[in-house]
């Protein structure tokens, strides 16, 4: 029996340092943002969620991507970060 070494083709550091996702201490009084990815009917799903939170007394706002596969522009990201406590969005079809 002989032996030869071969190299591993997958990336060395696929995973980065694990971080905790920040959580809200409570829902009451929080501002919730929604981000529509423009896929057909995704706006309706988010509207259903948005109505729920609005009826619960939360301040809500709907943002829209420029186009589904295009990353959200940085100014929009910053606006959501600065003005809202949480953001709900969708991926896929």
């Amino acid at each position, binding site marked *: 029996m002989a032996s030869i070494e071969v190299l591993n083709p997958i990336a060395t550091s696929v995973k980065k340092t694990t971080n*905790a996702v920040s959580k809200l201490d409570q829902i009451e009084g929080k501002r919730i943002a929604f981000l529509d990815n423009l896929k*057909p009917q995704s706006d309706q799903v988010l509207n259903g969620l948005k109505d729920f939170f609005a009826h619960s007394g939360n301040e809500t706002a709907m943002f829209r991507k420029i186009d589904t596969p295009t990353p959200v522009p940085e100014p929009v990201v910053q606006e959501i970060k600065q003005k809202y406590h949480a953001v709900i969005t969708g991926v896929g079809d």
Partner: protein
Amino acid sequence: MFFPLAKGEAEAKGFPELAILQVPHPLGSASAEQAFVYGENLAEDVKKVLTERTIDVNGEGGVQEDEAISVNYLPEQPLDFFEKVNGFYYQQKWTDGLPITPPIYERVHQMLNHTGYAPDHSLGEFAPTWANTTVEKVAVNAVMAGCKPEYFPVVIAAVKALLDSRLNLYAIQATTNPVTPMIVVNGPIAKELGMNSKANVFGQGNAVNLSIGRAIRLCMMNIGGALPGEMDRATHGQPGKISFCIAENEDDNPWDPYHVENGYQQEQNTVSIFGVAGTHNILEQTSTSAQNLLVVIAGSMTPLGINNMTIGGEVLLVMSPEHAKLIKKCGFSKDDVKKFLYDYARVPLSMFPEETKQKQLFKRRPKWFTNVPDHFSVPVVDYPEDIKILVAGGDGAHTTFMPSFGASSRAVTVPIERFPD
């Protein structure tokens, strides 16, 4: 259906706890009322995950060790090593399904001798896992694909182009669309390496074209992490996802080659990448005028369901020398061709069905579909310059039309660096 992608990306970015909830698929064909109810039904769960922690997070990274793999084999059996390596790599999902060249250290080292970069030099983060793309990992995948060391500068340039944000590799890797990067090489290096730019240019038969294209796909799987059915969500895919690399036929091109059109010198070597959703052949053998031929080409660029009709962006035409020379002989520059096709490759608004307009086109391409008269015709691209033109292939009266992924993905051209220069 995108749950594996969302989960995989959240983990890759270091947020395994990110709350992901699902609505029933398919959503696009659900009524507005039904989709609204899907949202309402999720609301309590969304409220819960906004406040409650779902898993323990210990703060430790998930770095995978970069270890060589020792393969035992029977030296008296000539194919034993090859088969053992291939069996193991296939089982690990590290191949495209075809046999690979075992990436032994010596072969990888030879590959690395054809770049000025250190093995651990990072070319960037590779979507969708956003993994660190080291030159050595690219070399390992290039060896596996069957590349010779002298092809490596082309592979490195192609990876750089892939990672350019204008191409939007994340979307290409993760979409249900069949879109895939097509690699185009310009400059003297194409001939030096023996690339095919002529007969059967998209087909079988040339080891340089095929192995470079294959190396890029292996990088997309092994470094980017887009495995079919997992983070690669393609519904059908396409054969070009195995390997899709050509050289432009500069010998028989009556216009400036693509890289010169884009500001490079004729003697410079470049790689361009186009995200293409497929190939559609256009046969036109009877034309004696550019206008006649271009009307046929324009009429072949306007199916309702291609990505560009929905979301704009670039399209690619690969003309045979015969078609290109006829058009040039009639006095058309490339810009003239683009302008002509922009005007003629259009679909009357009335051809689009109402549901598609209401649910999709009004939102995603409003410029052409809202506040326009009924007799308006919608162009396949938003601007003439979004029509890209290459010349490649052998004898024959054919042009290949390739729709793209739409406006979010743009063609990218980068120079090829050779070492020693």
